[in-house]
């Protein structure tokens, strides 16, 4: 997938929020595929999963968009059963943490159905999870389980970081992907405006990684909202120090384009990994594993890693602000990679990223 407009038939762009892109793709799925239905707690209410399903129940009817009881495992099992007989279910979890109640169905059943039965059955479906962050989400409304799900063969796990990523991936996931897909969306992104291509892509776009910004000095491999943090940091260090950062949006957690990632690291020799979750046994570890397997000598020095502190998420703002990597720390990691710890370049004063997002007015 590439968010640049050069592969597209039209260079026209328009502005679309992340929530707006979700709503457009949900709407299109229901319009284009009558076998699609969306179920989840609150999908038909006035908030519509933060605006991503608003009005669809009225437009398509309760057979296509409906609320469910509090039954994460049951709902996911119902989705599997419906998928097995040819429907396309889309389920939602308003916080990713609740998907852990559905782990049995996702991990023991959906991920294995095709393989375990020798390819004679499959359960294509889309499971949408929303990761929370800031304003005291606390330990159980803030987890980002990409590594958890990507660990299990049979699951496709994506983390769209922009409106364009949603427009590129969701329609083809829904129309063509043969198996279950877990998409991990980020609540902080929902209200951000992005520039998106006005035209539809001319050909299917692989569900994999892409270069979000080209650079020669250091590679930042990032996921979800950390892609935007990396892009902001890249802009800062370009302006302050003339450092050119290459930012790769991993985008697909289960099936990244490792050749793309490794090619970039080989070019820059320096690596920062910026993930939305814990570093331990996670995306950061997997990126390093790929480097070690292919050519550890491509790194000029030990890589830097940014992720959540190795603790459950605290609610107090003073702790939450230091729990997540800030823009300050992201810039510091990049500068240290390129210029060493005595780089002497001023760091941004912004320590609370979410305050930055409140002030931020897109589009990206």
């Amino acid at each position, binding site marked *: 997938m590439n968010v640049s407009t050069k592969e597209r038939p039209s260079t026209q762009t328009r502005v679309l929020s992340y929530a707006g892109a979700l709503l457009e793709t949900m709407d299109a799925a229901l319009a284009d595929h009558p076998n699609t*239905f969306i179920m989840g707690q609150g999908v038909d209410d006035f908030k519509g999963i933060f605006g991503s399903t608003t009005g669809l129940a009225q437009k398509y009817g309760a*057979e296509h968009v409906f609320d*469910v*009881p509090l*039954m994460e*495992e*049951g*709902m*996911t*099992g*119902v*989705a*599997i*059963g*419906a*998928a*097995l*007989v*040819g*429907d396309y*279910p889309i389920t939602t979890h308003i916080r990713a943490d609740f998907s852990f109640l559905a782990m*049995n*169905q996702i991990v*023991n*059943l959906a991920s294995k*159905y*095709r*393989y*375990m*039965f*020798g*390819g*004679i*059955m499959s359960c294509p479906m889309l499971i949408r999870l929303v990761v929370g962050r800031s304003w005291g989400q606390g330990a159980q409304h803030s987890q980002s389980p990409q590594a958890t799900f990507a660990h299990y*063969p*049979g699951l*496709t796990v994506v983390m769209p970081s922009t409106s364009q990523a949603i427009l590129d991936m969701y329609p083809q996931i829904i129309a063509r*992907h*043969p*198996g279950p897909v877990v998409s991990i969306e980020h609540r902080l992104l929902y209200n951000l405006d992005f520039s998106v291509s006005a035209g539809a892509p001319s050909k299917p776009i692989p569900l994999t990684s892409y270069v979000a910004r080209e650079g020669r000095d250091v590679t930042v491999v990032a996921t979800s909202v950390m892609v935007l943090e990396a892009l902001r940091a890249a802009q800062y260090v370009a302006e302050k120090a003339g450092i050119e950062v290459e930012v790769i949006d991993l985008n697909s957690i289960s099936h990244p384009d490792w050749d793309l990632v490794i090619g970039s690291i080989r070019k820059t020799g320096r690596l920062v990994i910026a993930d939305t979750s814990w570093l331990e046994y996670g995306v950061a570890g997997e990126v390093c594993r790929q480097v070690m397997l292919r050519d550890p000598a491509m790194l000029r020095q030990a890589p830097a890693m940014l992720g959540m502190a190795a603790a459950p998420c605290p609610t107090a703002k003073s702790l939450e602000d230091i729990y997540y990597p800030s823009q300050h720390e992201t810039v510091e990691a990049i500068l240290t990679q390129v210029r060493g710890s005595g780089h002497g370049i001023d760091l941004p004063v912004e320590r609370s990223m979410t305050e930055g997002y409140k002030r931020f007015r897109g589009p990206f």
Partner: protein
Amino acid sequence: MAAGVADFQAGERSLMDSDERYRRLFRTALMIRLVEERIIELYPSDRIQSPVHLSIGQEAVAVGVCDALNADDLVFATYRSHGFYIAKGGSLDKMFAELYGRIGGVSKGKAGSMHLSAPEVGLMGSSAVVASSIPHAVGAALSFKRRGSSRVAVAVFGDGATEEGVYHESLNFAALMKVPVLFLCEDNGLAVHSFKNARQSYNLLEHAKTFGIECRRVDEGWDMMAIRQATLDALSVVRAGRPFVLEIATGRYKEHVGVGDDFHFGYRSASDIDSWKAKDPLLLDAKLVAELKPEIDREIAAAAEFAENSAFPGRDELLTDII
């Protein structure tokens, strides 16, 4: 007078139909029993290198229920599903090849005994995680309802599965959405080695009623004809768009997993199942068994030979069909 003759003829015909039906059900039940007895004989040879959960003693449930279903109705079953596989009409050759871990098996040997399926005849995937296929039947039934189809889905589970949370979630959702699903509980009174009275503080039917779900218990779990009729009665409710809980008492003769008896472990005694054996038609009707057995034995021998001659899946199968 004329009417009387017609009644007599109709009665005679229905008696013949009934005999015919009994014979058909009996044959399928005997097939299940003999297949599993063959599995017991084969097990020490290590041709079947995976756990097996035998349904010997419980055959009448699968046979009675599946005979009442239409060919295009779906069954979602459990790790103890040799009976449902055969009763729904799955291929015996493919079953043996699957148990043998061969490429000619239903699932190319990747499923084994615990994940038997035969989607072409309506047996969907069986799960080894207790209760986990119950919501799948509800989901398929939801799809049938959305399409205005007259098909139904059956969730098969044991009494232990009703202790899992997803059972309650499934009942609630099915009742709310009014989907055509039959919840079929095979009540053998045991979860591995634990008796029901140590596990359940509720009565299954009373519990189902609190969801507004119609329900019935059949105590005569050896009686294929009674189970068939109870299923037909339940299906008339289900096809009208209302879920139904059908609980059938039955007896597990063998150990939870494996091919042996388990009375010598002391947790239960042989007398616990004597009452079931005393009414077991496969034990009582020796004449019919003798009449049907030779042909069934030949079919089983042919299936075992098919499996024996089927290749093992090669390395090229290791990484196929993942996504």
